[in-house]
């Protein structure tokens, strides 16, 4: 397993009508080939901003990057010229979104759009491209592929369309698929199908996947590694099983506890009071302090530093690593 994408000290500032927004505030993240990595956190925490930075999909007149995003052990994506960047997009790294309609042109046939993606990056005949697109449609469960090839986006249900966008994103056998909330707009039944499909294809094609979600249940379902994001920072990351069994950051624990569990009836759920902070100013102390059950005086004024545990497990909090299980007290 090698490091496919390595993000070092990434910061993303965004010029918006309401002023400068520090959407990503110094994150480090490594995605290895052959793993499913999840980024989880509430809306507005900078997950999409991070994901889009990997492909530099922002309007670059409004965004300022610093830090580096190293691809495949060397080249910095943030410094690449347009030509090299376009070569990587779609071919090496591809992306799908919450609304599959953003992937497709509503006026063109689904199949033609998938073939086109292939023809841009590979020197093959049109007939060959069509054949491979039909194969790919069948692979994602759109059957029979040959008949569905000529359907238009509006003729498909949301779940089918998301499958089709997966087919399109995987047609060039990318080394990394970035999926930004791919199941958030779908029913639970469709969500279960899509997650299963993504996992199966990832294992078959040996590609890496970066999946973004606000739901820890999705992380439990398919991820190997997870990074938890809050207010533009990664506040905990590590192996999924470790993080579920012994979360060290209170935010991670609160997010896990807010998933409705079966078997619990007529009980109150754990909810997180308030909302994540606005990112248009600098944050003093720990960003989670105003909502944190364990916050002490120190947390409000002094920014915590990363602590590292076994197996690459890291977290950003003043609490000792076993505090959440013991009841919690800052050192």
């Amino acid at each position, binding site marked *: 397993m090698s490091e496919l994408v390595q993000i070092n000290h990434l910061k993303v500032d965004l010029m918006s009508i309401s002023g400068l927004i520090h959407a990503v505030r110094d994150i480090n993240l490594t995605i290895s080939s052959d793993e499913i990595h999840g980024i989880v956190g509430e809306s507005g925490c900078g997950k999409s901003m991070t994901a889009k930075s990997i492909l530099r999909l922002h309007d670059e007149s409004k965004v300022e990057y610093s830090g580096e995003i190293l691809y495949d052990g060397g080249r910095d994506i943030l410094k690449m010229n347009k030509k090299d960047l376009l070569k990587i997009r779609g071919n090496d790294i591809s992306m799908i979104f919450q609304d599959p309609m953003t992937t497709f042109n509503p006026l063109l046939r689904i199949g033609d759009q998938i073939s086109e993606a292939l023809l841009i990056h590979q020197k093959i005949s049109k007939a060959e491209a069509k054949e491979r697109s039909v194969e790919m449609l069948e692979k994602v469960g759109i059957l029979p592929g040959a008949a569905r090839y000529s359907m238009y986006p509006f003729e498909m249900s949301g779940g089918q369309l998301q499958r089709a966008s997966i087919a399109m994103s995987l047609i060039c056998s990318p080394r990394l698929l970035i999926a930004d909330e791919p199941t958030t707009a779908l029913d*639970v039944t469709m969500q279960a199908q899509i997650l299963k499909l993504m996992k199966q294809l990832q294992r078959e094609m040996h590609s890496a996947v970066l999946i973004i979600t606000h739901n820890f249940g999705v992380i*439990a379902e398919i991820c190997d590694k997870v990074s938890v994001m809050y207010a533009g920072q990664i506040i905990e990351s590590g192996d999924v099983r470790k993080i*579920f069994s012994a979360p060290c950051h209170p935010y991670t624990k609160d997010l896990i506890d807010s998933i409705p569990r079966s078997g619990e009836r007529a009980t109150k759920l754990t909810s997180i009071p308030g909302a994540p902070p606005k990112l248009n100013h600098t944050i003093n102390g720990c960003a989670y302090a105003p909502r944190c059950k364990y916050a002490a005086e120190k947390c409000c004024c002094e920014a915590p530093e990363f602590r590292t545990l076994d197996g690459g497990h890291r977290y950003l909090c003043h609490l000792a690593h076993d505090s959440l299980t013991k009841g919690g007290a800052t050192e």
Partner: protein
Amino acid sequence: MSEPFIRVEHVKKYFDAGNKKCVKALDDVSLEVYRGEILGIVGESGCGKSTLGRCIMRLTEITDGKIIMDGKDIFSLSKKEMKEMRRKSQMVFQNPYSSFNPKHTIGRSLTDVAKLFGMTNAEAKEDISNLLGLISLDESVLSRRPGELSGGQLQRLAIARALITKPVFILADEPVSALDVSVQAQILNLIFDLKQQFDQTMMFISHDLPVVEHICDRIVVMYLGAIMEMGSVDDIFSDTRHPYTKALIASKPRSSPDEPVPEVELKGDLPNAMEMPEGCRFHTRCPHCIPGKCDAAAPLLKEVSPGHFCACYLRQKEKTSESLPVQNGFEVKDIRKKETTL
């Protein structure tokens, strides 16, 4: 149980789809909503849940059947009775941003409703202030506009607005589906409080079974315009009878990576609403479908234990603990077991 506040009797709602085809959004649905209960309506998108809600709120005419609210047929009310019905039953929608006027302050949106139902300014002010306490927001939100608030705050305000008229009944159509999981919990807890404090009667529509498990007393599982299973929360979760209900329960993401992967899996998409499958409408996706039986005639919705109804050939006999036989091109475990369950 107390007398029902709403009685839906054999309601059909067909939409004309052109080409002599129609969508049977509701196909002979009968159910009751009792006073003081939260009734959950679950099923995938397109099953007719919102249509059922819209019929009950009289936002659309029905094709056939009857809806009785508080003893009166809602489709033959006088103007005055109609206004009273509008007061007594309120709605909360999925997207809180589209249910508030973006140009008005929250205070104005709430006072408008109060005035519409004849409250004085002073009464409205006091009521609104009490409601803000209930939803744990402070008075400063009244001068804000929807765009300045988070989805969770706005959805709590939508619930507060529904409560202004002191309704007997609240219909909540997917009130948490557009929200983050962390915020979803806030809304569910608020609804739970309404139930504990005021015995609020509610219908809660959702596509997510584990969500309704937390707050509902009874649950109706719908598929393609018809009821598949209906019963108390215990009936639905601890004595699940219908293969569709099982599949819905199994599709929830696991709450930890160490939880076992459920065996049941719902394959495929909802069939096209204009081409309703013959026989049991679930048979095209059902892992237990018995060829020649399930695809020939529809099973009736039968009472399998007191208050627990199920429309499936397999599960209408007494409760069996062994697993169901699997057919339909899947593995067939033991044919003899099938005969005993049938």
